[in-house]
């Protein structure tokens, strides 16, 4: 019986465990899995049970990533995260009393506003009352100032 247990224990520990590697671009991001900090990227040979996990990747000046996945019972899993940098952006409008909105989500009324924006292509919408009067696509890839004036 004792022999059987000795044999079974390593087998049962091995089942369902996945050897996980976590890489980020750029490296040095802090990785938290299921609420516990596991270190900074790159992380190699991390043994995780297969199943549901929540990964959180954070790095200064970059947007954090929250990633939920059901880790399959593979021998090895390599997770690669590309972090997006955030830039300081000033917005100055030359048209008063309008309403502005970024990415169909972030609204404001002031003609001047400072933002911390994730790199990438954002949409800017301008409303007068409830009517959409203008729409623009803005690429953010550095700290910049957006001067808005109505066509």
């Amino acid at each position, binding site marked *: 019986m004792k022999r059987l247990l000795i044999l079974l224990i390593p*087998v049962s520990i091995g089942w369902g465990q996945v050897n996980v590697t976590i890489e980020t671009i750029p490296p040095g991001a802090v990785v938290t899995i299921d609420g516990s900090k596991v270190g900074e990227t790159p992380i190699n040979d991390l043994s995780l049970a297969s199943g549901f996990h929540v990964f959180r990747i954070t790095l200064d000046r970059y947007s954090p990533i929250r990633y939920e996945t059901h880790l399959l*019972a593979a*021998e090895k*899993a390599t997770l*690669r995260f590309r972090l997006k940098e*955030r830039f300081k*952006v000033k917005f100055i409008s030359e048209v008063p009393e309008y309403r502005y909105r970024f990415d169909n989500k972030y609204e404001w009324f002031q003609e001047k*506003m400072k933002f*911390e924006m994730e790199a*990438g292509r954002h949409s800017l919408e301008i409303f007068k009352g409830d009517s959409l009067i203008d729409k623009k696509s803005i690429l953010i890839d550095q700290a910049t100032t957006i001067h808005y004036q109505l066509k």
Partner: protein
Amino acid sequence: MEKSGHKNRYAGWIIPGIVIFFSGCALTIPEYPQPILLDESSVSIEYTYGSVEINAPIQIEEGQPTAFRLTLYSGRDTTKAIIERILMPEDRMAVTLPRSLFLPDTLIHKAVIEPLGGDYLTRIHHFSYTGPTITLPISRIRLRPVIIQGSIHQLRDGSPVSDAEVTVETPRGQRTTIYSDSLGNYRYSFPAEILKDSMVTLSTTLSGSYPVNAKQVRFTTSKNYTINFLVGPSARFYQLGAPYLVLDNLTPFRVGPENGAKIQFLLPKDETLMVTTVAGDRLKAFIEMKSESSKKSQFQEGWVLSKHVKPIDL
């Protein structure tokens, strides 16, 4: 003068300073309370899978299969085989497959082992992923059996005869007795190799003076045979009088009612009689006799003592 001149000089600095301070306040740009995110996280996940070895041990109990077809189905799609492999008897009955085919672990997969080169039973095993090496239960290889089945019914009205004895005799002289169920059905199966190109005799008997009802089955390529039996007295016999059953073995069946009358037969227990006349303690009755060769019925009239028989309800 100087002092007042001093005062005037400070006053000249204070006023522009206040103006600059307030205008500076007016120029301060507010900060949006949250970062503007695109929520387009860029994540890739790459899995590397190990392999799974599936062992399917076999034990040949009947016949000599020339090869085996091993087919595996994943629990994710039980209609499409993930692998089909022909293995020779001397080959190791095992296949190695990527682990990814057996994900997730909770699924039930299926292995089908089909012996080739004869009429063999296919073996099916269901299994789940339990580790990198999976060993299925031993597949015992047997020939598909011959099944002989049928029913036994009363000749007079077609009613089923339960617990009727059916004797099966193989050409090698092996005799096996089985009994019909409450619906008069019986079923018997043999390993096929014993019966190849041979004949089997089935027989059933009813109590009374009825001959053994025997039938022969010559085996062909089919594995299923249905042999039905109709037994007992005929319907025509039942129209001759009131049915009685013989209570005692060796009951005299005489030509006349008197004590010294000639005995035609000694009737066995449970023989059926059709009584036509009652004369005191003697009964005039018919018995039915069947010839084994012609299978035709003959009715014979005679007398029995009433103490040896009892009326029966049909």
